[in-house]
């Protein structure tokens, strides 16, 4: 059996670079590295452990992400792979990479604002102005606090009139 990688010699950095190929199945423009859910990579005597954390407790994409990590590493000759899930510290939008935020905007999803990592409990008090990813206007309004996936809310642009998803405070 020929493998592209000698699992004894592979480095953490090489594995990290392979994981760029694994995308979030619900926001396919983001890799799991962009999303900030890869918390650790360990290589011990040829055994690889990838530690991931869910964005939300009920994120339905986690099983798919686990399978995809295994598949991608397996394609590169790494078959001794263990995926561990940790819950603490809890994922925050702060962990999303700068590159990831740019990719989101280009994809038509407003990235999380740096100020909104923790949800405040003031009622009927809206977030900082969220920028429309289409026309870049700040003249936008909330349609619904919940959107197409657990991690997003639904907004509308009052200038270009387009609805758009916003990565909600978390």
């Amino acid at each position, binding site marked *: 059996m020929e493998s592209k990688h000698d699992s004894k010699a592979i480095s953490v950095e090489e594995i990290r670079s392979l994981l760029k190929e694994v995308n979030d199945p619900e926001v396919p423009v983001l890799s799991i590295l962009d999303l900030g859910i890869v918390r650790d990579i360990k290589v011990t005597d040829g055994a690889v452990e990838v530690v991931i954390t*869910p964005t939300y*407790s*009920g994120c339905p994409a986690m099983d798919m992400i686990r399978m995809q990590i295994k598949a991608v590493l397996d394609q590169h000759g790494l078959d001794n792979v263990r995926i561990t899930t940790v819950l603490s510290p809890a994922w925050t939008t702060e962990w999303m990479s700068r590159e990831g935020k740019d990719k989101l905007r280009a994809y038509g999803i407003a990235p999380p604002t740096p100020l909104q990592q923790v*949800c405040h409990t003031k009622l*009927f008090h809206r977030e900082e102005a969220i920028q429309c990813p289409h026309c870049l206007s700040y003249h936008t309004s909330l349609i619904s606090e919940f*959107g197409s996936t657990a991690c997003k809310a639904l907004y509308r642009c009052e200038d270009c009139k387009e609805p758009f998803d916003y990565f909600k*405070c978390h």
Partner: protein
Amino acid sequence: MSSSTPLIQYTLHLADDTLILGHRNSEWTGHGPILEQDIAISNIALDLIGQARNFYQYAAKLANEQSKNIYPPGLNGSVTEDSLAYLRDGWDFRNSLLVEQANGDWAKTILRQFFCSAHQVDLYEGLAAGSDKMLSAVGAKAYKEALYHLRWSSEWVIRLGDGTEESHARMKKALEELWKFTGELYTPASYELWATGAGIAADLSQLRPRWEERVKDVFDEAGLSHPAAGWMQTGGKEGRHTEQLGYILAEMQFLQRAYPGCEW
């Protein structure tokens, strides 16, 4: 159940509360009053069932370590999150009575969610600060979700309470129906007293005033009068449920009972 450890019982109580509330909310999927709120209540259901899975996985791990065959095993012989959710009977469930109450109309569903979220925020914060590493991690994660649910449900209680004559009347009726189940949230079961003593969870008697204050603030804003203290129905946390739980379990467990181990 009696020879099970208090830690397993406490973890199952947390798991059952979130599963049953999540299941109730999920009954709205495809039936919400408007599309956006259908999506909202379904997302909350998803968060809650995700939290439930984390609690059940931990309970299953503890149950297997204990190896006393108290809990029903899955087909492979060991206790799993699925066997705990799908193969226990009504009297084994440790959820509070509030979460199992039928959805009724949107007002009743919203009010139930508000009472629960206002409770969970402090409960999870306590777990996160507690001494059990796993429950602390699950609690820290769930805390952020509960905050978001609290804000959403608070706004809806106000919107309906302070809305039209019709919406106010419905919220008032929901309050009459649900209030008697709220006392149980702060009537500790033996395993909750144990969890507080073990430094795992906050003391419910200390959390109660915070819940009451949240409820009072939102009720004031919503134009709802605060119900007088009165008789409260309890028992769910000890396995004595209202007839409502049976209907949920019948629907939720039918497939695994009829076709054991079925997957799709």
